[in-house]
């Protein structure tokens, strides 16, 4: 909400010339979502502070913005935006300090390129990832960083620390460099943008990051966050910045890469099983974004493929990824996507050779499994049912996973091999199937594979 720039370079009031703002006045510049005020709390020859004060209109902000994505209905109305330094602040810098940031100073042009000692104050700066990230971002550029952190609520210490900091940065740099760096790095800390991030953002980043970003040790992080995690844009920008260096395609940390490989392995294993059993029609019950469907489509022996998911959004993505609209008629006829649920019986699931549930059951509350069993084994009743689920025993191998925690926040349970097999045996017996099990992924002698698969036959 407040950005102060202080200098002690004699005469300190030269700051007024540099910023192109008179120290004795309060100057107000209009922004799209409110306004910004510039004033000087202190202006002597020894020390001069310029303050940039955001004045966002909380009601106006709401009327302009698009629905939030957090799932919290009141997000638009109750939020931190008016009180923090965010992309609104970058916007304010660009508006109020345009001249200085562009390196122009009519009256004292020699000041533009002069490295001047500055003390920057930000109240308050939200930092996703907290103090370590804040330091990773500013310290390599030579800033001396002082932070004051805050509890979320003093009355409820158990709620922990907030992500807001009163930050002081000290450095000796030309003002235009400071402004450019703040312009880029404030929203990077916040990791949010109040506007739609489009292609022109790359140019802005290139321009403002010129001379410092390409040598920054966490330039990948800065680039990704600046472009708000939009993968294709971030990749494009990274390619520009890194030129001949190899760019990793995966967004996530190495742990997640193992996970991805595991998931591909699961899907291929499932497909192999289906191929071995000469299955010609498959219902993917919980198809998500359609990864398995795509693998199945590659094999002509699958004549009829059904993808069911409860999430309409996932189906839309699947529809898109599988390019269904552009498939030739004959291919299109093989595949059908439907919204459905495995806790309701569904005639559309009948008549398939095989039913496949890859990492589905653990997303259901355990008491609801009884309904799923009936839907799959009693009503849909395919010849072959393949069910995979994570192996809880393997969790000890994931260093980052605390003991007793689940691998995914939406997992309602994670079973050991014995638990899975006890369930599978009972289901097989109850519904007249035979069942066999196999581990999925690289198997550990003690804890087994990361995932497990049950094959039911009738």
């Amino acid at each position: 909400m407040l950005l102060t720039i202080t200098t002690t370079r004699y005469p300190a009031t030269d700051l007024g010339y540099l910023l192109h703002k008179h120290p004795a006045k309060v100057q107000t510049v209009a922004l799209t979502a409110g306004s910004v005020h510039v004033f000087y709390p202190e202006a002597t020859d020894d020390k001069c502070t310029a303050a940039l004060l955001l004045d966002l209109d909380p009601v106006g902000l709401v009327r302009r913005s698009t629905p939030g994505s957090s799932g919290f209905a009141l997000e638009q109305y109750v939020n931190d935006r008016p009180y923090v330094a965010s992309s609104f602040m970058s916007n304010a810098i660009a508006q109020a300090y345009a001249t200085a940031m562009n390196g122009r100073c009519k009256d004292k042009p020699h000041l533009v390129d002069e490295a001047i000692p500055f003390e920057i104050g930000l109240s308050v700066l939200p930092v996703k990832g907290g103090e370590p990230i804040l330091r990773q971002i500013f310290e390599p550029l030579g800033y001396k960083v002082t932070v004051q952190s805050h509890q979320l609520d003093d009355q409820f210490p158990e709620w922990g620390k907030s992500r807001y900091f009163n930050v002081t940065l000290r450095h000796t740099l030309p003002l235009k460099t400071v402004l450019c760096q703040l312009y880029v790095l404030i929203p990077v800390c916040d990791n949010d943008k109040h506007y739609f991030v489009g292609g022109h953002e790359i140019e802005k980043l290139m321009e403002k990051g010129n001379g410092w970003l390409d040598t920054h040790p966490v330039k990948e992080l800065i680039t990704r966050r600046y472009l708000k995690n939009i993968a294709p844009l971030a990749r494009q920008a990274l390619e520009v910045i890194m030129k001949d260096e190899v760019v990793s395609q995966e967004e996530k940390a190495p742990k997640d890469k193992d996970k991805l490989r595991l998931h591909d392995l699961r899907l291929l294993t499932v497909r192999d099983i289906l191929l071995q059993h000469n299955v010609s029609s498959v219902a993917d019950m919980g198809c998500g974004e359609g990864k398995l469907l795509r693998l199945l489509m590659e094999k002509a022996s699958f004549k009829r493929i059904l993808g069911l998911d409860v999430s309409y959004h996932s189906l839309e993505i699947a529809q898109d990824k599988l390019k269904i609209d552009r498939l030739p008629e004959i291919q299109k006829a093989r595949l059908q996507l439907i919204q459905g649920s495995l806790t309701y019986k569904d005639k559309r699931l009948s008549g398939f050779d095989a039913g496949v549930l890859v990492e589905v059951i653990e997303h259901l509350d355990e008491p609801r499994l009884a309904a799923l069993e009936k839907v799959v084994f009693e009503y849909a009743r395919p010849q072959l049912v393949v069910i995979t689920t994570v192996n809880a025993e393997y969790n000890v191998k994931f260093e980052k996973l605390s003991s007793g925690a689940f691998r995914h926040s939406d997992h309602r349970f994670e079973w050991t091999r014995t638990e899975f097999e006890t369930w599978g045996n009972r289901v097989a017996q109850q519904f007249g199937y035979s069942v066999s099990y196999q581990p999925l992924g690289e198997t550990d002698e003690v804890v087994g594979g990361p995932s497990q698969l049950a094959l039911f036959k009738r």
Partner: protein
Amino acid sequence: MSRRNNKLSHISIPELSLVLLIGPSGAGKSTFARKFFKPTEVISSDVCRGLISDDENNQTVSADAFELVRFIAAKRLKLGLLTVIDATNVQPESRKEWVKLAREYHVLPVAIVLNMPEQLCQERNALRSDRNFGGHVIPQQISQLKRSIRYLREEGFRHSFELRTEEEVAQLETITRNPLYNNKKDEHGPFDIIGDVHGCYDELCTLLDTLGYKIDKENAQFISAPLTTTADGYTRFRKPVFVGDLVDRGPKSPEVLRLVMHMVNNGFALCVPGNHDAKLLRYLNGKNVQLKHGLEQTAMQLAGESPEFIDAVKSFIDGLVSHYVLDDGKLVVAHAGLKESMQGRGSGAVREFCMYGETTGETDEFGLPVRYNWAMEYKGRAMVVYGHTPVPEPQWLNHTIDIDTGCVFGATLTALRYPEKELVSVPALEQYAVPARPIGYNAGSALSIQQQYDDVLDIEDFTGRKILHTRFSHNITIREENNIAALEVMSRFAINPKWLIYLPPTMSPAETSKEPGLLEHPAQGLQYFKEAGIRKVVCEEKHMGSRAVVVVCRDEIVAQQRFGIAGEGNGVVYTRTGRSFFTDKETEQDFITRINTALISTGFYETFNTDWVCLDTELMPWSAKAQTLLQTQYAATGTAATQALPVVVAALQRAIQQNVPAQALLDRYSQRLAQAKDYVTAYRQYCWPVNSLEDYKLAPFHIMATEGKTYFDKDHEWHMSAIKNICAGDTQLFRATSYRLVDLGDMDSENAAISWWEALTAAGGEGMVIKPYTFLNKDEKGLIQPAIKIRGKEYLRIIYGPEYDAPENLERLRSRKLTAKRSLALREFALGLEGLERFVNKDPLQLVHQCVFGILALESEPVDPRL
């Protein structure tokens, strides 16, 4: 009937039939159709040619045009509407298609032949400029007609009429439509529907006696029926309805026949035929029938009877109608039951189904055909009562019930009293026969058939566009996109649908207040009800926690018997979206146990004559459920504001000391700082740490339902006082809701309520809810809002944001539209009550779930979340 009717002025056809007009081009079919049928009843092949090709005479599109005729006809027949096909239909093969269609929908095909002279047809066509087909066409059509006309009966037309001249057509004045024999919708009962008797005459007499009928047992003569005063205030004689299988296996089939024939022939009773009755008829008619399955006994018993009696039996059975549709279509009686698409229809297939039901084609280990249980898929609105398959005890399944309790096999003879839905049984005097298949074989579950069936609901009942009927309001339409959203929420997060009998409706705030600094004030709420014609309201303190529905059973056995849930404890606490309130089962069950203990200790179960209850409540603290929200949104915003603003204020103060003209800014930001602090204070009121059950507070405010009863007929004072009694059972857990009664129009009373609200909100309360004194209220437009909330000034900070009450903000926030929210509240309210009514009436779960699912779907409609 007659294919040649001279000087006919009047013909009659069945009310539900597919009428084929038959005749060459120019015979006057369309004119005829216009004269005797409604325009919408007639589907003309010419019109359909025109619809698809812009030319009614375009013979090249005939195939497509007929497809269209057939499509429309099929839709009409599905709805049970008489349909007339206006096409030449002169060839047997084209008529064959229509007979097939009629059979598919179990309606009767009727032929009306306009067999006009060729010359007349030619003349008429010559007058029409658009019909310029060759002169050979009409003679050809006439010859096709004449060649095949005499075989109409063989083709399947039991009703056909022929008109040969213009004069005959002119003489015909009316075509009347006769109800089908099975249509007895105007008989409203009350009825006593009696299961398979199978020659058990003594038991039948005892049952009739028990039901209050007077019978001359000696002479098998009916004397009198008991009287019942029905709900609509009429006093009527009761009427027995026999589901058939009067004979075979038992000791006294002739006596049973004699009595039932006496009753039916004199209009004191109704009877539908069973498969055994039909087989007896074939035997008596000299057909080659195997004397087994008990027919051998009947044959022997009838050996001594007079030929007159035998003839009477034959004509009695022959005259029995496959099934009856009674009481405005609310009741259907058929021997083996009847699926919805066949009810009130007539065809060989219908008769077959009524007597034998459906089989899967497989045979079981006893060599008997495996019956396909049509009732499993029954979703019709009519209650279906049937027999045929002996069951250990009659059980409702999807509004159907099998009342054959195997009297002849030594069990009982059962009657269902309608509309009371009471079962009356008398025991068999002895076992007269041994069933080939043990009765109730494969039935060994603790759950009823309905509950087993309800284990998994059918998705097609909840997806797509749905129109739901509600008894307290209009029909409610649920749009497809809202159902899509509901399906995801329901499947991913909701608890077992068997627990989920109710979801609470949303609640609208009052109109915006114009009082300075306020967005809401009680005056507008009171005004709303005053304008709606309400004289008395109740103002209840609004607790700030999370809305929770609580279902508690006295024990797990009740949970199993009444809710059909085994192994999930004896109760549940769930949120407005049907999600379990507690993440771990143990805490939930401990919580339920505390409530149950309070219910037991306060004698609730005895007072309410129930063993379960559904309560609408608020569960506190808010922070127990909204932890993530509090941390990521509320506390976060609070920290950001209270940490940033002091720095801003200090900077502005320094600037002012330097003579910078920043006083106005300082004032503004100082105010914002104060507002931020108020905001933090506001949300903190509703947070406290929860370490054990002791830290929860539960404030029930409605008793929604108990066994067999809802409480929408009780006023809110009653609810409050009944709840106060429960609260006394655990003062640590429960928090009674304080309330005030207000007489609208009495200024003192209104002002007292306003002062009370001011005091409540000044002390940090959320606000209050104003409800009409009685639970359900209507005006000429329908239901009126069951409740209006008036939220406190400080509470609204956590809804509208910390700075909402700055004058420039408030001014803009005042223009808010309540229409969508209010409409939503009413629809959800009506659906919520409907679902509970259905549940207490023991309707199939799918009907209850439709309401609950509908509320969840409605919740996905976009409305301003701040309201």
